């Protein structure tokens, strides 16, 4: 009984710190989401600008193959506390233990995605070259925006799983506290 009476304030302190971390994570997630939206919008607008300069048919589905190999993959790992982390693995820079489930990094959006030729070739081809060698600046800007967005997406996925974990921990602690309270009283 004594031990249980002592446990409640500890639990509450733990709960408080968990909640604070959860709120911090949520704020970071919101910020990253806003940044991702901005990058994606910029990327699409830069693509439109490139179409304006190069001709409407020069930047579109005609320029890429219907089957492609991703240039960037998502590696995942699960730690002991069931926390899932996601990170980007660029083709050609893989270490054996990092290769996680193979997932195309971006689901097939129409527009700029990454892909190289199949594995035997040493250097993955820059998708910018699908549109020719002399591409306007706006197309390079589009590629840069989408690349940043990709990084943000991986970070967001990790954050999301951390938030879910945090929420379940908070719920667990709240349950324990409820059990302790009636007995203490």
């Amino acid at each position, binding site marked *: 009984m004594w031990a249980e009476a002592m446990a409640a304030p500890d639990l509450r302190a733990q709960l408080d710190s968990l909640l604070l971390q959860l709120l911090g994570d949520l704020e970071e997630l919101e910020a990253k989401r806003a940044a991702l939206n901005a990058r994606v*919008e910029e990327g*699409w*607008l830069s693509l*439109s600008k490139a*179409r*304006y*300069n190069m*001709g*409407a*048919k*020069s930047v*579109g589905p*005609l*320029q*890429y*193959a*219907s089957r492609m190999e991703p240039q960037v993959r998502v590696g995942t790992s699960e730690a002991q506390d069931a926390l899932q982390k996601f990170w980007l693995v660029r083709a050609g820079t893989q270490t054996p233990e990092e290769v996680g489930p193979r997932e195309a990094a971006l689901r097939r959006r129409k527009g700029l995605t990454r892909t190289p030729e199949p594995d035997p070739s040493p250097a993955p081809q820059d998708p910018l*070259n*699908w549109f*020719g*060698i*002399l*591409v*306007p*600046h*706006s197309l390079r800007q589009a590629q840069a925006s989408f690349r940043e967005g990709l990084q943000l997406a991986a970070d967001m996925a990790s954050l999301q799983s951390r938030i879910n974990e945090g929420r379940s921990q908070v719920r667990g602690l709240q349950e324990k506290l409820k059990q302790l309270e009636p007995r203490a009283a």
Partner: protein
Amino acid sequence: MLEGAELCFNVDHGYLEGLVRGCKAGLLTQQDYVNLVQCETLEDLKIHLQTTDYGNFLANQTSPLAVSTIDTEMRKKLCREFEYFRNHSLEPLSTFFTYMTCSYMIDNVILLMNGALQKKSVKEMLVKCHPLGRFTEMEAVNIAETPSDLFNAILVETPLAPFFQDCMSENTLDELNIEILRNKLYKSYIEAFYKFCKNHGDVTAEIMCPILEFEADRRAFIITLNSFGTELSKEDRETLYPTCGKLYPEGLRLLAQAEDFEQMKRVADHYGVYKPLFEAVGDGSGAKTLEDMFYEREVQMNVLAFNRQFHYGVFYAYTKLKEQEMRNVVWIAECISQRHRAKINSYIPIL
């Protein structure tokens, strides 16, 4: 022969000149653009376009409307007008029209070759080719492996044949070589077109030669700008510059050595026409790019072409102005469909 433009032009070409001036009057006005910019959806845009010369051109399209459909339909309309002019033309205006279509043919050939690299089906690519650049041997373009193949087997009977002189090589066609091929073909084409106009003399030469000089110089600048940071070497780059512009020969030689935008700007500063264009280029998000400045200047020159009569330049100018109009409408449509209205006013007004 005495300068007979005023006397003889109308015999052969008067009807078509009158027609093209009538078509020009149907270009979108500033008020039309203001209405288009205020549209909230692509359906609104379609409704507004119905009140202009475009009429019900989108009537048979299923909703939801896509921006590429708008572009294709507008291009079909331009093509119909162009074909009408071409079918009713007599020499030497017909040759002039053939020269105009060569640039679209070059684009189609390159599109088909790129499609072959990406292993796309020929039928899929043929549908997307520019209608003004169609020629019968198009379907066979994708089987060519080298430029000499391409020439000997396929293009030797087409109007593009004379432009292949510099491009015959045995290199296989990968991305770098296709790009080089495209630019070399275009260089030969524009130099040949320039010579044709110059030899024709008369008002046509007075109007068309400055326009083509500007086009050649603009190509040189844009090739230089886009080649920074790519695998194209300076010597290769110099072979792609058309020589019929004001920059030839000193400017082109200086331009070939340029390594960044600042150096390019210094070359342009030597030329009174290009200095103001480069100075107006800004860096921030609201600023104009170099390509925008070139488009504006092109529009200015094309509008001025209509101030004189009895020359073929009106046909060229009309086609180019119509293309700018299509670019404007597609830009506005993209901004509307992406709900990103910050830059919607970046179109170039024509009238």
